[in-house]
């Protein structure tokens, strides 16, 4: 068995560009470099042609019309534009007043959704942050219970970035449409992995990002529904009126061409890829679960994207675990590595105890992940957990039958 190190198993953070994407982009740096806004010469027309092909490729991947695609710098911008843009457009009262309308989201959304919502709270809107069940899911019933007369917007991610869990998006969309509430979904992790049809899935606004699906960083898109209902947004940035006024600024033509190509490739490969990665993930999880006690796979096991797994290893601390497997690139559920000692707020939202939340790894596979890599990673992780448990006073106590939660710890 031979694998090359370091090994990348963090595809939910970002993916490498597919070489076919880079190839498609290349001419747009140096030859077809025109500004698509230049309507009066061939340089502009050629660039515009590239953008329009990409717009169609993206629309095809998600079942949209190409006129409904707005290019952005990525999902963070798409989320900001969707959430702030819709809230301000559909506000019940003008800026400066309170009671401007009600928004529903969830506590374990990405920060790029939560922080715009917090901003809107300061700007006079009410926001309900739903808590998921222990399975991490947000259901139609939860939204139904939270809806109010003055609800103007619901924003729920399609698949969670730390867990891969899949929310009841078409169902929530149907509910929103029946109540005339705008529905936005952050589909950053979902698009390109799972079949998507914004029309039949009842989506009004959808965020997607190039670098999560083998496209370049710094480019993404927002789908904005044009019919039944026609969604309007207040623009965040103003200028040349590009993207039908939703997003001024000269288009990132190279990035857009790359995003389009990435979408086309995902459409071709996602079904096979999904099945292949499911087999690998099952193997990884069963290997680990067979070799170690007190491990927990977080989030609804049967409603997850097939390339992501989030596992907690009892009595082992996440950062030291990452250090022990340092040649394997994964994410830790504990944010200890980023200088604040906070365990993952996503895991906490599921009711995972702080001790287990400190001990979790998110492993996410991708287009070029092999069985050999997964076998190697599983063995390394098992070896590292065993080593660290030999060091762990908590594992000793567990084996001696001492209930760790009953000890009076001196918190510091």
């Amino acid at each position, binding site marked *: 068995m031979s694998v090359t190190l370091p090994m990348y198993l963090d595809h939910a953070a970002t993916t490498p560009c597919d070489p076919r994407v880079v190839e498609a982009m290349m001419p747009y740096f140096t030859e077809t470099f025109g500004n698509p806004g230049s309507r009066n010469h061939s340089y502009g027309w050629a660039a515009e042609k590239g953008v329009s092909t990409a717009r169609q490729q993206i629309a095809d991947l998600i079942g949209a019309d190409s006129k409904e695609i707005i290019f952005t710098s990525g999902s963070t911008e798409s989320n900001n534009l969707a959430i702030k843009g819709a809230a301000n457009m559909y506000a019940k009262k003008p800026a400066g007043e309170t009671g401007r309308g009600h928004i529903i989201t969830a506590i374990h959304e990405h920060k790029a959704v939560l922080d715009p919502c917090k901003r809107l709270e300061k700007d006079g809107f009410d926001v309900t942050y739903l808590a998921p069940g222990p399975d991490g899911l947000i259901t139609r019933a939860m939204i139904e219970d939270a809806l109010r007369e003055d609800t103007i917007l619901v924003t729920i991610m399609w698949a969670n970035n730390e867990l891969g869990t899949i929310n009841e998006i078409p169902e929530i969309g149907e509910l929103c449409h029946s109540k005339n509430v705008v529905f936005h979904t952050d589909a950053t992790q979902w698009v390109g992995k799972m079949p998507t049809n914004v029309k039949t899935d009842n989506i009004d606004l959808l965020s997607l990002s190039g670098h999560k699906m083998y496209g370049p960083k710094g480019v993404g898109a927002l789908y904005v529904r044009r019919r039944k209902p026609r969604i309007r947004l207040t623009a965040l940035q103003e200028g040349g009126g590009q993207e039908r006024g939703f997003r001024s600024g000269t288009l990132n033509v190279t990035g857009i061409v790359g995003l389009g190509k990435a979408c086309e490739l995902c459409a071709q490969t996602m079904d096979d890829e999904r099945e292949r990665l499911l087999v690998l993930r099952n193997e990884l999880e069963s290997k680990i679960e067979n070799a170690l006690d007190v491990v927990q796979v977080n989030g609804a096991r049967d409603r997850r994207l097939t390339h992501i797994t989030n596992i907690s290893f009892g009595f082992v601390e996440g*950062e030291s675990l990452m250090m022990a497997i340092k040649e394997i690139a994964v994410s830790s559920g504990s944010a200890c590595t980023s200088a604040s000692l906070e365990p993952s707020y996503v895991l906490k939202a599921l009711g995972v105890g702080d001790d287990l939340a*400190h001990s979790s790894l998110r492993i996410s596979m991708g287009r070029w992940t092999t069985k050999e890599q997964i076998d190697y990673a599983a063995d390394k992780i098992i070896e590292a957990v065993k080593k660290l448990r030999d*060091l*762990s006073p908590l594992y000793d106590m567990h084996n001696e039958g001492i209930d*760790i939660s009953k000890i009076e710890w001196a918190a*510091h």
Partner: protein
Amino acid sequence: MAYGEKVIDHYENPRNVGTFGTQKEIKESAEIGVGLVGAPECGDVMQLQIKVNDSTGVIEDAKFKCFGCGSAIASSSLATEWLKGKSLDEGLEIKNTEIVEELSLPPVKIHCSVLAEDAIKAAISDYKAKHNN
């Protein structure tokens, strides 16, 4: 997090890992003092045990176990090395700043050294408490 060489050395080859018995045995042994500090929800727990020669008052052996990041493991490993051969009073003089300096800990990891100092103090006071009764 990029670690210094000494942290990595202690992490990869921790000194004096272990315990002098089960939790119950240690509690009952008069020659052993134990310090258990930190909390699982904070992401680090250190257990430091010292074996003291009753007649000379010298720490003859020390062992640790640690649930925590690489710096926490290195800090407790280093503490056991420094404690061996010291008297109880000398042990109490070990300061977290010396651990920070020896391991070149970055500012965000200073709490690991504080925890190690707390563990030393807790183990020594546990030993002393056993002998005052």
